[in-house]
């Protein structure tokens, strides 16, 4: 087995890498998967505990993961430690890079919202003139979306307008609760669609690469995987300059290793795949590797209270549903304040309303919290961030990570388009809440720092023109036909949607194309 040349080297084991491994190995192609971190075994590595038995009483341990707002004292050890793998940014332009290096990556912890992009995203430039169109349309990706939705067991209703294409759903035909009906009644006359939430059920409570994709690949006997393999660079053939494998370093022992493969598939997550290309000096004839970093505006939102839910013995008839309000701005008529649009996640929650929603303390606060219990109506914003050339990442030559690999410098910021969009979203959400007779308790129109959504995409965008894009429509490098990037890096525009279904579908499509080309011996 030593010095064997594998058919395909897959770097990364999350949704993108897991899907590539499944598809390629099912074609009989021999794959080697490298993952930078260890295998997590919940039976050994995790245990239910009360906050006073964990470090810092459940608070985020200071100084290690300050840019992971999602972290707390319980999950602190699953994220990448910022001291071990640092990244840099200008002080006034913070970036929240949220990373998981466990086997399966962030697919272990995602929120499972499962949306398709529509042609308002794929053909965004044709619609409003900004940016570039993707080289594919919804019709090209639709068959793959359907298969992915089947594997991930996505629940939803066939209620989407054109900007939210319907899919291969486990049908959600539960009636709306009365709070949501009130919300729909005021949204509809304003031309604002309200749809059933769409969510991946997965199996046994998990919708991850490790339980839905990798077992299929392992069953073929064609997949070999290595954990704790931190890839240093992609190697190239000395004579031809063609990628032929990689050098990696063992995370624990720092032993330097090399592997050879006929094809390299990058699936390390948007910014790690891009960092690897930049550190390897590859696939960058366009000069665009690292350019057009995008994500989604998260943080703005409104919390209202549904009056009839307070002290209501029949709470489940009033509260409990959740909905997705897909983008409604700049569909039929043009907004003069911003391009593109945002979605609202709305949830009629049955639990406690957090203390910060009341300007009170002590006994008075507890009385308020008792009264408002079970009446919280959450509206949170997911806004599209435009792809701009100047929002980019590059290698920081002065900093190295724990294995001596140069780190990434992130240079990105939101513009008036994003800020205006956030303001409009919060104004609109407040208007809807008022109209529905809900009491607005708190609101915020300031976005969290870029990256917070964990939906970072772009930096190796796909396109038909090799001068204006890094990858072609099959996620294949314009420069090297045996090099693919199958994660979020390939996005041409971000959309407002959670990108997971699109990443999975693109990886599936690229992998089938690659398998076909390998079987025809074109690669």
């Amino acid at each position: 087995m030593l010095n064997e040349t594998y058919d395909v080297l897959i770097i990364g084991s999350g949704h993108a890498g897991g899907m590539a491994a499944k598809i390629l190995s099912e074609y009989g192609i021999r794959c080697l998967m490298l993952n930078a971190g260890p295998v997590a075994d919940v039976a050994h590595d995790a245990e239910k505990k009360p906050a006073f038995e964990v470090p810092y009483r459940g608070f985020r341990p200071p100084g290690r993961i300050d840019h992971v707002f999602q972290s707390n004292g319980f999950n602190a050890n699953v994220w990448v430690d910022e001291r071990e793998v640092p990244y840099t940014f200008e002080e006034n332009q913070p970036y929240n890079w949220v990373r998981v290096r466990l086997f399966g990556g962030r697919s272990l912890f995602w929120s499972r919202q499962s949306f398709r992009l529509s042609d308002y995203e794929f053909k965004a430039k044709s619609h409003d003139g900004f940016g570039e169109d993707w080289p594919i349309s919804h019709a090209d990706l639709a068959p793959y979306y359907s298969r992915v939705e089947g594997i991930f067991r996505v629940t939803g209703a066939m209620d989407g307008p054109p900007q939210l294409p319907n899919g291969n759903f486990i049908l959600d035909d539960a009636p709306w609760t009365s709070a949501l009906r009130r919300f729909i009644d005021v949204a509809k006359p304003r031309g604002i669609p309200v749809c059933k939430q769409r969510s991946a059920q997965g199996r046994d409570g998990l919708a991850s690469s490790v339980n839905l994709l990798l077992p299929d690949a392992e069953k073929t006997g064609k997949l070999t995987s290595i954990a704790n393999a931190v890839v240093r660079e992609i190697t190239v053939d000395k004579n031809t300059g063609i990628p032929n494998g990689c050098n990696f370093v063992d995370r624990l022992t720092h032993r330097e290793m090399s592997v050879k493969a006929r094809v390299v598939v990058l699936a390390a997550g948007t910014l790690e795949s891009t960092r690897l290309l930049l550190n390897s000096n590859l696939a960058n004839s366009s000069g665009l590797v690292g350019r057009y970093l995008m994500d989604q505006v998260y943080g703005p939102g409104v919390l209202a209270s549904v009056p009839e839910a307070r002290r209501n013995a029949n709470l489940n008839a009033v509260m409990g549903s959740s909905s997705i309000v897909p983008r409604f701005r700049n569909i039929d008529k043009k907004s003069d304040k911003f391009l593109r649009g945002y979605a609202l996640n709305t949830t009629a929650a049955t639990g406690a309303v957090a203390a910060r929603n009341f300007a009170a303390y002590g006994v008075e606060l507890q009385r308020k919290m008792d009264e408002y219990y079970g009446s919280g109506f959450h509206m949170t914003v997911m806004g599209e961030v435009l792809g701009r050339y100047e929002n980019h990442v590059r290698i920081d030559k002065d900093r190295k990570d724990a294995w001596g690999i140069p780190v990434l410098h992130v240079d990105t910021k939101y513009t008036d388009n994003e800020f205006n969009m956030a303001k409009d979203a919060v104004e609109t959400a407040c208007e809807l809440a008022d109209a529905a007779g809900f009491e607005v308790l708190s609101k915020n129109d300031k976005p969290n720092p870029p990256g917070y959504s964990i939906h970072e995409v772009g930096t190796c965008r796909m396109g038909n023109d090799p001068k204006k894009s890094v990858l072609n429509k099959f996620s294949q490098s314009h420069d090297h036909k045996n090099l693919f990037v199958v994660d979020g890096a390939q996005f041409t525009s971000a959309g407002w949607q959670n990108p997971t279904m699109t990443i999975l579908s693109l990886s599936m499509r690229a992998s089938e194309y690659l398998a076909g080309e390998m079987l025809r011996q074109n690669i």
Partner: protein
Amino acid sequence: MRRRDFVRSVLAVGAAPRLLLSQQAATPAAPPPAPVPWLLGLTEKTPIPQVEAADQVAAAQLRFFTPRQMATMTRLSDVLMPPMGEKPGAVQAQTPQFLDFLIGDSPDMRKQVYREGLDWLDAEAKKKFNVEFAKLSDVEADALLKPWLRTWMNDHPPEEKHADFINIAHDDIRTATVNSKAWFAAPQVGAEPRTEEELYWSPIEPDISPEKADCASVPPHVQAVPKADHPMPSYPR
């Protein structure tokens, strides 16, 4: 001594008494295997010792707040989260001591919010009531604090000076108190907040490499010594 010779001599030492024994006793007990495997017997049946969190038992050394700031912090905690029903207040839950530790370990920005906030609060008490904050009555403290309370969303505390400190501290005091063992142990009534109980992830195969940036200055445990200075016999590894 070569390793093989060493092993042979160990075996010889073990064999000699056994030879003697066999001449004296008819049924000698089987000798323990030598050398004794260290970890033999550590199994899933091994009892797990019961331990307490240190701050349930021991007093924390205060390192961050000045005594004056600590007095202000303690009064603030008591006002914002007094004992209610059977639940302990922030002071009973040792929250001021815990925050001395948490904030003292935190980034400078958070330290600054607390230091300046506590000093400002004390100065305000002096200005308005001519007494330090720690000695204010509930009514006086309410008059000072209430105007600064705001409603806000997660991750976005007020940015306005003074309101930032009051609201951040209020949130931290509540979390630290609700997450204390004292709160957990007291009976739960109605919609009172519950101590967070979640899946805690231990460090998963943590990186132990000496080259890691924050332990690069620690010398390795075993250092090679130049041969000439070191006359003891060495053995091949």
